[in-house]
């Protein structure tokens, strides 16, 4: 299994000298599993050049997409993703439904004639849209994908990919749950017994990450930065570390760097997180655009 980080920046893409090292493109990952079509998670700006490369090298016949959620920074590249214009390519999307709006409608919305010059009808690829609900699970050629609802406005899904040998969990975007119910339907479900709801949510999240060889986690904020901003829907490295340790995960990638975070801040976030863990238990690295991780 090879995981490639195509975009690690959160909220919006940035191109400023202070954060070019870790990269300014928004969320997109590629997961290569031997014996099956490529898997992509999200379509932030990190996906754009990947589409150019794919078409240059000959598009694969089939591509899987797993979408965490449909906020702009996670889907910006689709109108520019060249394989979508290739009639010989079959693209299978698995995406959450936020506010009763299926993902296909949102992709069509990106081609609104006032806002984009190429009509949706030009996307000649064979497209399959699967509306994913929290808890759904998919048996693919050589991997299993499962999802869980995360704590972020709208419906946001964490995705876990499992092969016979390895496990990867993508947990973005997400906020701490304590007294902070952001996901669609969460406030209603928490109403009867908030503490029990929080405990169950956390238990599910730990089980979802359990024994993962790699966890990619939303660590947008520092501990100081998150004060009064829990409702923005993001976490800190310390929160990610705590969950990963509880779940016996092996390796943690800090992801969704705040747009204003310089390379130094991102670097320091990882340093602080490592100090908290101590040696040997959990390997922690800041997400670096272009990084390939062989598992």
């Amino acid at each position, binding site marked *: 299994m090879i995981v490639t980080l195509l975009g690690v920046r959160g909220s919006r893409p940035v*191109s*400023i000298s202070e954060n070019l090292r870790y990269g300014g493109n928004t969320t997109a990952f590629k997961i290569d599993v031997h014996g099956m079509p490529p898997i992509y998670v999200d379509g932030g700006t990190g996906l754009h050049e990947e589409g150019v490369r794919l078409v240059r090298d000959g598009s694969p016949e089939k591509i899987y997409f797993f979408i965490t959620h*449909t906020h702009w920074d996670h889907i910006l590249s689709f109108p*520019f993703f060249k394989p979508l214009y290739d009639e010989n390519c079959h693209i299978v999307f698995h995406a959450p439904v936020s506010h009763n709006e299926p993902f296909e409608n949102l992709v069509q919305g990106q081609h609104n004639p006032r806002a984009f010059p190429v009509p949706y009808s030009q996307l000649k690829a064979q497209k399959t849209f699967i509306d994913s609900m929290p808890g759904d699970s998919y048996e693919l050629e050589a991997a299993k994908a499962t999802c869980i609802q995360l704590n972020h406005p709208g419906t946001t899904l964490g995705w876990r990919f499992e092969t016979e040998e390895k496990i990867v969990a993508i947990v973005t975007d997400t906020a701490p749950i304590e007294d902070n119910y952001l996901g669609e339907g969460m406030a209603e479900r928490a109403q009867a017994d908030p503490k029990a709801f929080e405990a169950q949510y956390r238990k599910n999240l730990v089980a979802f990450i359990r024994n993962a060889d790699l966890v990619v986690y939303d660590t947008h904020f520092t501990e100081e930065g998150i004060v009064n901003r829990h409702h923005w829907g993001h976490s800190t490295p310390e929160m990610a570390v705590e969950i990963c340790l509880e779940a016996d995960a092996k390796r943690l990638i800090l992801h969704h760097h705040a*747009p204003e975070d310089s390379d130094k801040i991102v670097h320091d976030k990882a340093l602080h997180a490592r100090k908290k863990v101590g040696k040997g238990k959990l390997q922690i690295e800041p997400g670096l655009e272009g990084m390939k991780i062989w598992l």
Partner: protein
Amino acid sequence: MALSLKFYGTRGSIMSVSPERHLYGGHTPCAVVQDGEDMVIIDAGFGIANLGSELMATQDLIREDHEFHLFLTHFHWDHIQGLQYFTPVYFKGNRINVYSPFKVEVAREVLNLLLDGSYTPFNGLSSLPCEWVFHRLTKDVAVGNFTVSHRPTAHVDECYAYTVESTDRRMTFIADHDAQKSKVNDDLTAWAKGSGLLVHEAMYTEEEYKQFQNFGHSSFNMALENAKKIGAARTLFYHHFTLRQDAELAEHENRLQQAYNTKDRSLCFARENILYEVPKTG
């Protein structure tokens, strides 16, 4: 102070993020025309987020009761997608005036789609704390000591060029535009004459233009011909092709400068965060 222009986004279509494409800028279009207290923003691509951060860092006044004047050339994503990241929209009492020759309903509809609850954590324009005031432009409009006028460009959809004029200086901003021979192009170049500074889009090489000409953009040579016709003392090309690297942009820039520059006129490829002074007219 004198009339000046600063780009916060110079790149067309989609953000371009790479150390190899950083020099000429990677953010989608946004520019600020300013003279002292008077300020006009042209377009709200991702560059406008950095303008917001800069204002936050330097001016407390944007936290409340401050008025902004945003002129939109058109409503393609790359020209509006930064709006929700422009920090002043999060402060109650700030007023964002949005100007364009489009019907107000169209402007509202596209911006509400941008801010739709499925694409963002918000739910349309009215869910943000600032006040939105939409203006449909039918004639010249005064903003402080500026006069702003507009003309249509030739693009795939409606799109408009703007001039900003102060007492003794004039700047013309030609956003997305296909400068092949047409009445629109003739009218546009005639109207832009007498500007001290011209901003003109120049996205394609000649070969790329042949391939992509139905997208409504100009080639370098076509933009150069327009620059000659308009004859501004200073011309800036922008809306750089997304994946064109700095080295290649620099080559084209040098080549075009050699063909164009004289003692009375000069040409540059726009970069972000440089203050370009608008020369006096005449």
